């Protein structure tokens, strides 16, 4: 009757007897205290006869790990450990030294992990008071901070420092061929500069900030030389940016892998909703009376939502076909309206960008407003359109979970593609609406009159977007959230109570983070120090959001699932990455770099530095690289990767079938057990009746 749970691995030291809970196998343990009958059923019995030495070859660390996971009382575990220590066979000093080393290495790893992870205590506090959904937002923010900081180190190491070192010397890589007019670029203003202009320049990246390490225009197209070491600065610039993108992709996918594993292992999340809520709904880490009350309300709300969804499903199934037609046509109409709203937002951005570029020479505060006009319009659109879409969703009458997903998808689409609209408008202006051979673009294939150094201008736009996003976040905090809380707390009126304290809505905050990160990726080619600025921005944002969370917010009644949400955030981040990559590829390949500035002047496009430098490599390297790029190499590689992928797909399907088989087996065993129990009851009844008669006769 002892069926071991299906586990692999050696070192199973305790017998897990199944059947009727944990029946007390009559193996009395010497060291167990006299305990009440109720508790002897509580723990599975330990199999003393199994000798640990024969089961594990890789040192005694295995049984120790198993001992920690054994569901035995502590006194028993310590006794077992003592016995294990005695069982340890005489080993050579090398073995024991090795074992001690692995143990201390494990301890060191644990300590280091606790020390290096940033903000651990804060995250624990947040999770305890506001739940897993809010905590996942802050975990995501921490991931972005670390990603940006590491990217900054990368860029500083390969682009910034060599430029500083080789600033003065170095031979120019390409001859200065090109019309004189195209090479005119004078970013430093002459004459008297008004004092407050420095502040305006700081905010818009012009003036003293324009010709600095911040923007693309400052970097040289020289080959830095130092004794027998030469450093190709333009090539390094290009490769660093490309590598930065690939590095970010790898980080995102690695993190998605861990999140996806959990999501896949748990199968369809819509199954077993009620049992999930009942058994895993309560957060044991909840601290404080208020948080507990809220958690209870939250669970109550979730159960009610599920019951409501059931009711709606039943209602929807009971609709007549006429009502169905009406409902579907309403939904199509609302979809078209929401598309129309998003299209209107794009058109506004287009108009605003055009206007801003036309009036870019203005001075003073008005000039600043014109500079920031695209950012203002994007932010306003991102605020208004989701509000309107929420109202639309009320008419659509989808199930509550579908409504949430639709709203999020619309918001994601709006955010990312509004950024795309801005860039598209900029591009059209730089390349004179695509006709690079006519009008103002005839001389240099880009609009050199308005944009003597167009890359710096694009970098400035991204810089302004980042800064504006940050300023808006802080402004909303100071001007909206704190006053709201003061009003709600101190002004006893019905209106104030109805408005209530701010709720920390996780999805929209996450989208704002993704938007900020996408802007940084898009601008990285043109503004190499943007990751550093973004790191500082996100760090300040972390503390600001934490403060507002604890002082101004009440936990949301409708929670966001924490494990599937981590995966969702990363998927949205990946969309942002794809947009940024598309922009980068277009700028690398299609537009002619400015002739007056930057490391790629006098080349026909940015990517052509690679073939140019390629021919300066040694012949063997050239032949090797040609070979890798040729068909003789890539086709077998492609075939090999297809084979490997097929193998993994087959493996995954086999595992899936295994899981289904085991589930069916569990069901069958349960029924077998019931059948046997019934048989036993029958038999004992049959046996008892004659015995009983016998006893009665005796009397």
């Amino acid at each position, binding site marked *: 009757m002892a069926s071991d749970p299906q586990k692999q691995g050696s070192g199973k030291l305790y017998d897990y007897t199944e059947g009727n809970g944990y029946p007390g196998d009559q193996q009395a343990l010497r060291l167990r205290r006299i305990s009440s009958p109720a508790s002897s059923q509580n723990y599975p019995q330990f199999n003393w006869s199994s000798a640990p030495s024969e089961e594990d070859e890789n040192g005694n660390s295995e049984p120790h790990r198993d001992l920690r996971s054994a569901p035995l*009382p*502590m006194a028993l575990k310590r006794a077992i450990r003592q016995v294990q220590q005695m069982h340890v066979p005489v080993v050579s000093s090398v073995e024991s030294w090795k074992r001690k080393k692995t143990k201390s290495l494990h301890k060191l790893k644990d300590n280091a992990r606790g020390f290096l992870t940033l903000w651990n205590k804060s995250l624990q506090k947040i999770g305890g008071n506001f739940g897993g959904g809010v905590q996942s937002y802050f975990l995501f923010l921490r991931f972005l901070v670390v990603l940006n900081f590491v990217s900054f180190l990368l860029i500083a190491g390969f682009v910034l420092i060599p430029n500083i070192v080789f600033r003065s010397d170095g031979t120019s890589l390409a001859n200065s061929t090109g019309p004189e007019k195209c090479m005119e670029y004078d970013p430093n203003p002459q004459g008297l500069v008004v004092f407050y202009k420095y502040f305006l320049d700081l905010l818009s990246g012009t003036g003293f900030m324009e010709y600095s390490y911040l923007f693309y225009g400052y970097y040289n197209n020289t080959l830095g030389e130092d004794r027998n070491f030469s450093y190709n600065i333009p090539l390094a610039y290009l490769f660093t940016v490309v590598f930065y993108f690939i590095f970010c992709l790898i980080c995102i996918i690695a993190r998605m892998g861990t999140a996806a594993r959990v999501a896949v292992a748990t199968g369809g999340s819509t199954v077993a909703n009620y049992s999930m809520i009942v058994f895993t709904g309560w957060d044991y880490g909840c601290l404080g009376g208020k948080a507990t009350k809220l958690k209870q309300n939250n669970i109550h709300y979730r159960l009610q939502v599920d019951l409501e969804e059931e009711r709606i499903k039943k209602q929807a199934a009971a609709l007549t076909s006429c009502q169905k037609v009406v409902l579907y046509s309403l939904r199509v109409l609302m979809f078209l309206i929401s598309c129309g709203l998003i299209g209107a937002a794009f058109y506004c951005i287009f108009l605003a960008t055009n206007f801003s570029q036309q009036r870019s020479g203005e001075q003073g505060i008005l000039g600043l407003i014109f500079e920031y006009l695209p950012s203002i319009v994007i932010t306003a659109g991102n605020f208004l359109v989701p509000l309107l879409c929420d109202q639309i969703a009320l008419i659509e009458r989808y199930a509550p979970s579908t409504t949430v997903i639709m709203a999020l998808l619309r918001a994601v689409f709006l955010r990312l593609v509004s950024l795309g609209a801005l860039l598209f408008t900029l591009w059209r202006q730089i390349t004179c609406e695509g006709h690079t051979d006519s009008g103002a673009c005839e001389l240099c294939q880009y609009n050199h009159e308005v944009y003597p150094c167009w890359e710096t201008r694009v970098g400035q736009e991204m810089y302004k977007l980042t800064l504006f996003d940050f300023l808006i976040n802080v402004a909303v905090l100071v001007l909206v959230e704190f006053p709201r809380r003061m009003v709600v707390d101190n002004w006893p009126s019905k209106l104030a109570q109805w408005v209530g304290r701010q709720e920390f809505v996780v999805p929209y905050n996450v989208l704002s983070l993704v938007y900020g990160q996408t802007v940084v990726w898009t601008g990285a080619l043109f503004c190499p120090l943007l990751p550093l600025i973004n790191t500082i921005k996100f760090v300040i944002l972390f503390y600001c959001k934490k403060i507002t969370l604890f002082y101004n917010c009440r936990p949301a009644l409708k929670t966001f699932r924490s494990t599937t949400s981590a995966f969702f955030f990363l998927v949205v981040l990946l969309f942002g990455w794809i947009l940024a990559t598309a922009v980068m590829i277009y700028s690398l390949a299609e537009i002619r770099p400015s002739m007056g500035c930057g490391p790629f002047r006098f080349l026909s496009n940015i990517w052509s530095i690679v073939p140019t430098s390629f021919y300066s490599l040694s012949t063997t390297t050239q032949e090797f690289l040609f070979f890798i790029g040729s068909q003789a190499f890539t086709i077998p590689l492609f075939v090999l990767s297809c084979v490997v992928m097929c193998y993994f797909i087959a493996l995954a399907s086999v595992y899936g079938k295994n899981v289904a088989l085991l589930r069916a087996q569990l069901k069958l065993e*349960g029924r077998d057990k019931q059948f046997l129990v019934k048989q036993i009851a029958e038999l004992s009844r049959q046996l008892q009746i004659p015995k009983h008669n016998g006893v009665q006769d005796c009397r």
Partner: protein
Amino acid sequence: MGNKQTIFTDEQLDAYQDCTFFTRKEILRLHGRYHELAPHLVPMDYTNDPDCKLPLALIVNMPELKENPFRNRIVEAFSEDGAGNLSFNEFVDMFSVLSEMAPRELKAIYAFKIYDFNVDNYLCKEDLEKTLNKLTKEELTPEEVELVCEKTIEEADLDGDNKLSFTDFENMISRAPDFLSTFHIRI
């Protein structure tokens, strides 16, 4: 090696480290917490393994457990006598299982014990009703409670005996993505 503490011998600390998911520092800290629950009862010197148990009423007053609706059941599940009196061994054991490094299988075993109010190794309807009432502070109507309990058993019961055995429970937990993060007390 480090600061000299006289609460435990090195041998004992090693034993605790191997039997739980805590480091030396955390075990000493836990001893501090255990001691401050009843400073006159709990000795500072544990080198002789004193036999000292704290009653249920003291343990459930800890801030980490005070607001938990299942606090009584948690302490009872980890006590050897089933009545909720915890020695330091069991105290450490409890927080070790509820820490974030404990594996899913171990947590599932103890979660099952916690929700089994009548200790019959099955989660029957009464157990579920009590669980649900504790979860929602009795704000659901009796019909809703009835409905949710029925649906829960329907979803999780594999062998069709209208109650959940440990196998059913573990099978359902294995599909719960949040279980590890919710069944976790930070201390």
